[in-house]
């Protein structure tokens, strides 16, 4: 193993010298899009702006989709009935991330969870990923609650941004936080 004080033979290049060498050609993509949200996600995003979590129900199998789709992917039937969810649900699974996208250590670890939302008339299958659910951050939760597994099954609800800050985006929900009983 090479210790950090050992200087290896050869010519050392600085970053800007590297880019002056022929053989490295920089290109920055000019790739921009404006995605049409469509019928289902469009209404879902509008709902978020109004502080509501909306889903759709499949008329054949009764599955409730959050985020909603115009069709049931299992039945290939159009989903026609809209339902409003309370927003409350329970943590299905969660993870603590200690590093950022660029692998730098985060000052405060982030907790990401999949939340099984309570939906009127449909609970999904208990041990499977078939439920109206949302992927979001958890707050007011300690990393140890996650690492120990205590957080699994905990009741949570959305912490909404103030109405004037909502943009019709999934970030209109700041995070999900545990419901304090009583």
């Amino acid at each position, binding site marked *: 193993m090479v210790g950090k004080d050992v200087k290896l033979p050869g010519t050392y290049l600085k970053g800007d010298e590297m880019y002056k060498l022929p053989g490295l*050609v920089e*290109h920055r*993509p*000019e*790739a*921009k*899009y*404006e*995605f*049409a*949200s*469509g*019928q*289902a*996600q*469009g209404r879902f995003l509008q709902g978020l702006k109004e502080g509501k979590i909306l889903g759709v129900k499949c008329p054949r199998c009764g599955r409730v989709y959050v985020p909603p*789709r*115009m*069709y049931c*992917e*299992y*039945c*290939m039937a*159009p989903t026609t009935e809209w339902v409003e969810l309370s927003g409350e649900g329970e943590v299905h699974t969660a993870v603590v991330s200690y590093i950022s996208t660029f692998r730098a250590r985060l000052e405060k670890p982030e907790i990401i969870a999949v939340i099984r939302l309570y939906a009127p008339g449909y609970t999904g299958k208990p041990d499977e990923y078939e439920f109206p659910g949302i992927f979001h951050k958890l707050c007011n939760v300690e990393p140890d609650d996650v690492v120990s597994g205590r957080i699994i099954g905990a009741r949570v609800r959305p912490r909404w941004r103030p109405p004037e800050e909502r943009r019709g985006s999934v970030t209109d929900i700041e995070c999900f936080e545990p419901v304090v009983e009583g």
Partner: protein
Amino acid sequence: MASRVAIVSMGWYGFKSSVDELSFREMMFEAATRAYETVGLDPRRDVDAFVSCQEDYWEGIAITDEFAPEPVGGVLRPTLTVAGDMLQGVAQAYMMIKTGYFDVVVVESHAKPSDITTMHGIFEMALDPLYLRPLNPPNMHFLAGLDAAAFLQRSRLGREHLAMVVAKNKRAGLSNSRASHAAPLSPDDVLSMEPVVDPLTRLDIAPFSDAAVVAVLASEEAARRFTDTPVWIEGISWITEAGTGALAWHTIGAMPGLRVAAKRALAMAGVSRIDTDTSFAEVDDRYSYVELLALEELGLGSPDEVARMLEDGDLDPGGYYPVNPSGGSLAAGVALEATAGFRLLEVYERLLAGGYEEGRERGVVASWRGPPTRTFSVAVLGV
């Protein structure tokens, strides 16, 4: 001999400049539902595999393959993506059925160019990063301009022939519900316009369209379960010339790749000449000159002979050998990888409509994947 392969149903949605009301996934679902319901097919029970034709940069989603199964009924079913035009996907499905392991295969393609706000930037990403991108070509049509200029020089045809193609197709599209860009234009209307990339004017360049197309392919035995009117894929082939990285080495002003794909597909179908053994063709016309060049490469005649047919109205709808009776891309737009799906759909529906001379109950689809590719596909369909 392995089973013949048929198209038993097709569905579509869009073919408008912008499908604002639906997301790309919802367009896929709408096109798929139409294809399935027509023949009473349940994709969750009756389909063995799904093929989706799309490309990440068009979608704006990396590994967009993962988005393919859900809207077409392919969740938890074998699904694969072909990063190519829809005819290339049809060729894959054709081969899958020929193996005997699959009886029913669905092919899907969709395009939402209206979601792309930097079309030139996406096009640029298809160019060689070390050599071509630093040159920063001023607009994405420069390659077609080079090709068109070289074709006119070699063939000694003039801009007026390109204008006649534009007028013919834009007018033919007036009776086609998918041809949103149709217009009653004359060749003079085209000739009076300033070139965008000489010799092409804005009217010589097909505009973009949002669309989704779905085709259900089946073995002969399975096809009979769904329809009494299958349309057979009698021949199909696809070819890529030197890649886009070797742009300068491409044959400019000719399409040898299309020639080879045509030879193979026509031979499979037992077609010696398209005008005697088939009744019409839907060929690439995303730029006006491509139609004439494609007809030369399909063996219809020399550029001179093709031009004479054009002048005499032989290529008009109802003419001796109608070419792009649908109005082609000039009238219906370029729907990225679904452009070939449009041509396939037109040949499929026109064959079902019937009324063709015995022994010529066939139509030809000839597709270019568009610049900067040199990828071509040809299919012969028959009833």
